[in-house]
């Protein structure tokens, strides 16, 4: 979290992460170049340029698969959250590997023709109406275009400039890029080579990404199925004050699910409770799965902070999120599901008090 914008926000953790990423990419490329000719004998002569192209392409697809696995893994197990924190650098690195793959392929297959290389890629195979024989190169270029847009707009400056909903919608394009790349490989190298390794690895990537997302989605749906009980005035039950005092750890939240609208995170801050929307203003992170650090609710995804009593980020930051009214009746803590305007101060509810 920062008040201004820097080109790249590095700290020691990110330097180590990026170094590990670079070493991992180099190790993969070296291993692929050494092992692929033995493990995946080709029906055709494989030149060093083709091997280089395949090493870069498979590296890019592997990286994209891992990126898509991080989100649901972090939903399923908190231990994966540090990977989510650094996912942006992973994405930019994937785009660079994809660009290197595209350059390698275009230079080798289309570099010496009469047409300009990019035109040659798109025009030399006109079978756009066929499934098998489809110019799979165009699919790869489309995926690369999406990755480039995402990498260019990955900075928080663009998040603030475009607004979080628009930015998030653009970056959901990563799923389209993954689908295009799967088809790029399925209609490209998988058709050219008879080795079972390509379909096994490609199918494994699809199954891994799809099943992790379905598992994470089922967990979310299970939470939403159990809408919290309401009283006669439509307020939602959070729990018995006595039970909250005993079972809700200090600095943590209980998630309340209204029938409509966003989930509500009711945080315990010492002897008081405050309710905030469960959606972080930064990237829609699940605030209720974070905790209170230095008096501020801290998002588990990227560490954005908000004061529990008014939903405002501490100075000099200006982000605000919606707050909710709380009350206690007959020992039951209730929350009004109607959100107050972002940044509205609500007096924290004393867990010991009993009033209407």
């Amino acid at each position, binding site marked *: 979290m920062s008040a201004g914008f820097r080109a790249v926000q590095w700290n020691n953790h990110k330097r180590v992460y990026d170094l590990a990423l670079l070493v991992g990419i180099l190790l993969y490329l070296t291993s692929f170049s050494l092992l692929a000719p033995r493990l995946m004998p080709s029906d055709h002569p494989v030149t060093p340029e083709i091997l280089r192209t395949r090493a870069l392409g498979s590296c890019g697809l592997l990286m994209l698969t891992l990126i898509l696995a991080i989100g649901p893994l972090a939903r399923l197990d908190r231990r994966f959250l540090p990977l989510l924190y650094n996912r942006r650098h992973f994405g930019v690195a994937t785009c660079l590997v994809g660009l290197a793959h595209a350059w390698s392929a275009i230079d080798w297959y289309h570099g010496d023709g009469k047409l300009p290389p990019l035109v040659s890629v798109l025009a030399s*195979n006109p079978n756009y109406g066929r499934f098998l024989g489809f110019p799979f190169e165009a699919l790869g270029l489309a995926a690369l275009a999406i990755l480039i847009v995402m990498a260019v707009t990955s900075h928080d400056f663009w998040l603030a400039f475009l607004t979080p909903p628009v930015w998030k919608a653009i970056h959901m394009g990563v799923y389209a890029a993954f689908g295009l790349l799967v*088809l790029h490989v399925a209609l490209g190298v*998988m058709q050219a080579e008879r080795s079972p390794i390509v379909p096994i690895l490609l199918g494994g990537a699809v199954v891994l990404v799809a099943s992790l997302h379905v598992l994470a989605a089922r967990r979310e749906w299970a939470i939403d199925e159990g809408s919290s009980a309401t009283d006669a005035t439509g307020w939602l039950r959070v729990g018995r004050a006595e039970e909250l005092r005993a079972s809700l750890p200090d600095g943590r939240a209980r998630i309340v699910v209204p029938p409509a609208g966003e989930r509500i995170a009711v945080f315990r801050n010492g002897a008081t409770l405050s309710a905030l929307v469960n959606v972080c203003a930064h990237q*829609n992170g699940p605030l209720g799965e974070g905790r209170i650090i230095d008096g501020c609710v801290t998002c588990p995804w990227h560490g954005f902070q908000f004061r529990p009593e008014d939903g405002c980020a501490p100075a000099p930051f200006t982000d605000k999120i919606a707050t909710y009214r709380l009350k206690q009746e007959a020992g039951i803590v209730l929350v009004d599901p109607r959100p107050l305007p972002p940044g509205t101060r609500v007096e924290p509810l004393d867990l010991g008090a009993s009033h209407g």
Partner: protein
Amino acid sequence: MRRPHRRWHRRIWLVLPVLLGGAFLAALVLRPAPPIGDGPLVSGAAR
């Protein structure tokens, strides 16, 4: 995290993987016999 408020938001996440998996399986099953020469990777290319 935002809740998926529209029904298609939920459905799309089931439909898309099925479509992608179907396309992958179709490409796998319909694979032609081993190609001669350099195969489709250089079809239409200058080289």
